[in-house]
């Protein structure tokens, strides 16, 4: 009888462990040097083959792979990518980056596409540069998130189906809460 009770307890403990493990697995955490971010349930990281299968992502040269963001996730058909954190003065100049993006995106306006907007804002002691624009049927968020000391900047990009704009905006808010670990 005593053995039976013990078996039940072990079974219960194992079941709980498995459920906990599954839950932990569902809550993917993006971590790289200097940053940590819990991503929504259902997020999965794309492997090289999956990335290459994305439109326009197949690398042609070694440099194509080298400049490609090393962390690319799929969150319910929204493709989210993060570069490594930059510590240099060029990439930590958010205003400079804004001018850079604004200048390049000026061509969209010339083609009659007035969707491009960009803003630098303060969020929880961090500075965030966010550019948003629509190209054909896809929306894009280009973002640069900077730590309070203005020494680290995480750049990334989000590509989403135009119909999922609200979902992408909510996700953008989550991303802005990324924690700098240094």
């Amino acid at each position: 009888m005593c053995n039976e009770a013990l078996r039940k307890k072990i079974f219960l403990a194992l079941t709980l462990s498995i459920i906990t493990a599954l839950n932990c697995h569902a809550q993917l955490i993006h971590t790289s040097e200097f940053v940590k971010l819990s991503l929504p349930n259902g997020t999965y990281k794309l492997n090289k083959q999956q990335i290459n299968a994305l439109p326009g992502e197949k690398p042609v040269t070694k440099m194509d792979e080298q400049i490609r963001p090393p962390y690319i996730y799929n969150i319910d058909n929204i493709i989210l990518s993060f570069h490594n954190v930059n510590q240099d003065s060029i990439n930590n100049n958010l205003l400079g980056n804004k001018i850079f993006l604004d200048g390049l995106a000026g061509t969209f306006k010339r083609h009659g596409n007035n969707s491009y907007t960009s803003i630098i804002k303060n969020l929880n002691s961090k500075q965030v540069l966010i550019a948003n624009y629509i190209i054909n049927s896809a929306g894009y968020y280009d973002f640069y998130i900077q730590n309070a000391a203005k020494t680290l900047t995480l750049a990334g990009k989000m590509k989403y189906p135009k119909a999922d704009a609200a979902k992408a905006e909510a996700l953008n808010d989550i991303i802005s809460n990324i924690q700098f670990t240094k």
Partner: protein
Amino acid sequence: MKKRYPKSTGTIFKLCIVLLIACVAVIYGCRKDISKLDDNPTATITDPKIAKAKSWYETNYSKPGGKPTTQNTNAVGDDFDLSQFFSPNWAAAKNYARFNDDVIEMPMDAASAIGLKVGSASQSNSRSSVLILKRGDTYKAYVMTIVGYPEYLNADTSKLANNSYGKHDANFSGMVYYTTPQGEFVDGYTYKNGVIKGQLVDNYTATTTGGQAVQSITPNAYQAIQVCTAWYQKVGEVWVYLDTQCHTEVIEVPDPSTPLPPITPPSSGGGGGGGDSPGSPDPCPPQGTVQSVKDGKVGNALKVMLLNPGDGGFPPPGGGGAPCTIKPVEDPCDKLKKSKAKFADSFNTQRNAAILTQPGPHEFGSDLNLTSLTSNTYVNTPITTDSRNDLWTPHFTWNSTDGYTVGSAHKHPGGNAPSPDDVFLIFQNLLNPALTSTGASNINFYKQNAYATVITSTATYVITVNSTGWGQLGSLYANFDNDPDGFDNNYLSIARDYKIANNVDDATATAYALNKIFGDAINMYKAPAGTTSYAIAGIDQDGKLVVVPCP
């Protein structure tokens, strides 16, 4: 007592026999399925692009009869058809994009290995692949053979597999050799430490002076060497001789008076590899029969492409054009030297300086109109602005009153390098009725002399179009015209990612993105602001933007 096995022993025995037969049938059936898979690789092809290419290939290069044997392999001469001796391994095909081509690359099927013997080196030092290039709806097929020189292989032939059409080892020394599937020579390139040292050509006609074929193609000097290659097929463990071809290797030498660099593969000893079939003819004459070198002349029509493509891969077969057509590739330094007479003359220099001093954040610019097609003097066109930070509108003319617009110069106040729009402006002018209505010679004049100058506070950039680049530029323009936002978003993404990954300034990032998109179609020249010290801004074999001065 209840019987556990109610049936008789005989019945059980019969049942066992039936089961045994069934097992054998199942095993045999499975084996048959596996062999079917080998014979019909289409069964494993899930990529529709590859399946379509296979269908095209098999329609055009059908293989009558069975597999070759030692009895039918010594087919030398005009009837030689290489495609009869190999089968592409479709199951291992890879698909990627390069130079506006949809590339399908695959090794040979292991059961039909072919080898290329260069000089006295063993044919085991080679690895052949089938390359199918699709541009638009047109397919072209080639056999690409990579030959590793002993100093590169270091007795390890598995290193050959590190090299493909789109990427070769940074220290690759050897040869890439293109033929049609039937074995008709297309062209080839020799490498030393990852750098092109020579080009194999067939249509090279050298004049000879006193037994020496000689040439001078300023500003570079070239030497010509005869290189013979021989095809073999591996039957079991034996290499069986198939065919021999000889070509001319043209190599660039910085100083024609210096001795010929040792770019031909040195003898590996052992008389050409242990696998040769006994009694097979010696396919090649001794190496190093240098025919030429100094002074003298050769048809200037031949221009050898000795610049790496810039993306880490091998040059395209036939220079990207049709098989057996050597497309002359302009030396960007030659082009710079010629074009500088126009875009870097005193008028242009003064005009650039005047544009740069225009105040405010807006773009300013000026059309650069020759007074005639036979002079290097310019019409004194005004400096104009659209009062916008991101746009300046040029005005093309092609007449003796307003001048002949061969170029334009405008300021990028933000400091970025020329944009795709700036390059396309050159192409759009080519379509302008004011030019096209004046006939072919005017159009050719424009093509040879067109340029776009972009001025920033730190540098002056000039874009010219390679004489062989107009077609590629036209294709890119069609893509742009079809989806301008998508095209420019690609440019933005490349520039942004390059800046983030390499911590470079905006000008470098945008110059990289432009070069990345337009490739060999254009030349980009860069000079420090206020100077005419132009250097070539391009992407090196490691994929990074470099600025290289011309000699």
